[in-house]
């Protein structure tokens, strides 16, 4: 254990992938990935179910052998130094993996013994971890009596029990209600800040990656298609889009939009005009005033801030939901994707908003989440 700590200094990367590949027969689950995650990062793997995220995590956790390529965790090779890799990482699986007949404290004690921790260390760590995940008062109750959120917290705490350098969280909020999910996010963020542990989280929830992660790798069909901060990814879309519903838009409006320096791009649509700009919220009044001046009748105003969903869409040509439906019905998903692909063009905003109810809620949640961050920091 001690040598695993000294090793960290030599390698600033908590995780490094080099051409990592996993094939199951004909299927390529993980395709030639190269990536580095820095020590202390809160890193997200974002992608639809079936993109290869869990396969990647399972390889890094030494539960699966790669078909090709190499990777290191905490500087240790995942195929030749499995013992050291396992000592260096904690993992919370997608499916719950607790012994419900044991108490919370007993689950932690079991884990500690499996990771070679002696009595003194167990007696120090178990109360610490229980405190960390707010379960100290339920420590001696069997896990059966825990709520879903409590079980998840216990699992996250257990993953940290042996003080690993890297913590993998595979879809940590799947199956949790919205409130518990939010609480869990806060725990994860606090852990990352306080203990400095590198956290790699896989998720197919856009807002989760957006809210939590410092950097996000977008995975699709076994490949990493983009890596950047959530902000960087969203900025790549070129800013916010204001969609103005207009009756008989006068051509003068379009001429005057051409002159405005804050307008990056504008497109006439069936129902009005879509304008791409930075800080769209501050430009809505300008745009409304401008339209008024040209005598246009405004029927609707819609501000769309860039979301990771839109980033995924613009890179892969499908929404995540379509991709996931696509694993059941392949051809259709692709077609759909290219058709209503560019949301920025705002073809039929009302229809889409109605169709994509889920997407819309996610976007709102993101804004709320950001507000929370602003408040606490």
């Amino acid at each position, binding site marked *: 254990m001690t040598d695993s700590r000294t090793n960290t200094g030599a390698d600033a990367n908590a995780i490094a992938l080099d051409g990592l590949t996993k094939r199951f027969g004909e299927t390529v689950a993980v395709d030639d990935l190269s990536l580095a995650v820095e020590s202390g990062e809160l890193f997200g793997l974002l992608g639809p179910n079936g993109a290869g995220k869990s396969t990647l995590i*399972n390889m890094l*956790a030494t*539960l699966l052998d790669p078909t090709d390529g190499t990777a290191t965790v905490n500087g240790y090779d995942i195929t030749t130094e499995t013992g050291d890799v396992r000592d260096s990482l904690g993992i919370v699986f997608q499916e719950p993996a607790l012994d419900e007949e044991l108490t919370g404290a007993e689950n932690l004690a079991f884990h500690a013994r499996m990771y*070679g921790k002696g009595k003194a260390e167990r007696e120090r760590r178990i109360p610490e971890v229980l405190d960390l995940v707010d379960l100290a008062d339920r420590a001696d109750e069997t896990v059966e009596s825990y709520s879903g959120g409590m079980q998840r917290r216990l699992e996250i705490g257990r993953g940290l029990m042996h003080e690993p350098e890297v913590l993998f969280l595979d879809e940590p909020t799947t199956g949790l209600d919205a409130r518990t999910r939010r609480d869990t996010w806060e725990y994860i963020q606090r852990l990352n800040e306080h203990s400095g542990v590198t956290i790699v989280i896989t998720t197919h929830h856009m807002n989760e990656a957006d809210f939590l992660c410092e950097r996000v790798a977008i995975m699709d069909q076994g490949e990493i298609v983009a890596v950047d901060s959530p902000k960087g990814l969203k900025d790549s879309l070129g800013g916010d889009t204001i969609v103005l519903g207009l009756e008989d838009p006068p051509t003068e409006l379009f001429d005057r939009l051409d002159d405005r320096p804050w307008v990056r791009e504008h497109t006439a649509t069936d129902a009005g005009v879509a304008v791409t700009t930075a800080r769209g919220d501050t430009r809505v009044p300008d745009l409304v005033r401008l339209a008024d001046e040209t005598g246009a009748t405004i029927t609707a105003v819609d501000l769309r801030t860039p979301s990771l969903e839109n980033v995924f869409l613009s890179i892969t040509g499908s929404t995540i939901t379509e991709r996931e439906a696509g694993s059941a019905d392949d051809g259709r998903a692709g077609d759909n994707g290219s058709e209503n692909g560019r949301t920025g063009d705002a073809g039929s905003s009302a229809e889409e908003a109605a169709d994509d109810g889920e997407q819309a809620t996610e976007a709102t949640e993101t804004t709320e989440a950001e507000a929370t961050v602003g408040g606490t920091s």
Partner: protein
Amino acid sequence: MSLIDPRGIYGLWLRDVKRFVRTPSQIAGSLAFPLLFLVFLGFGLRGVPIPGLPEGVAYLQYLVPGIVGFSMLFGASFAGLAILSDQDVGFLKEILVAPVSRTSIVLGRIAGGSTTAIVQATLILLISIPLGFELAGLWSLPLAALFLVLIAITFVGFGIALASQFSDSEGFSLIVQFLIFPLLFLSGALVPIEGFPEPVQYLALVNPLTYGVDGLRAALVGASRYPIVVDFGALVVSSVVMVSLGAYLFERVDAV
């Protein structure tokens, strides 16, 4: 990862023991079957002349060591089932991702499964005393304990080896139903194997339970078919074989 990790083995053992103690219904359930056999055969066949029964040994005296062996089979099948139910609830991953060798995991499970099986067998033995069973002497007990340990290791090892070939508990349970009774009948646990046709007797010779029950009889009743050292030797061999087989097969179980 060292091959033998005492702390990991102890952790696995402790977990099995805690779970066992907390589920009295399972204990009662696993005792019920052997007790039914004990009561109905023991009393039903009392005084009936049975071919091959050792001179001067009452049938109940003959039967009790066999029923104790029978309860060991049950205990061992539960241990195999425990691995698969861990898989069903996802806990197996928590075990497999820990820096503990597969061999140590198998040893930990054998330790846990053997302990619970031995406790059940001991309960059967205790219950049989008020029913009329007489121990050959106090020295019987440590000797019987030794045989119980070897039987437990053999069959829990076998249970783990078998469980590692299944991906869910249903298929395993089905196969176990088909295995338990032939193993039981072909061991001389209920009636002496001398009465069987000759080819069937050969099958009994390769059944480790034959030597387990015979050894228990030597220890508890003082009458056995083979010399006690032969029983002991055969069980040591079967224990080593089954533990190795369990470790070998479990090593190859896919973690995900």
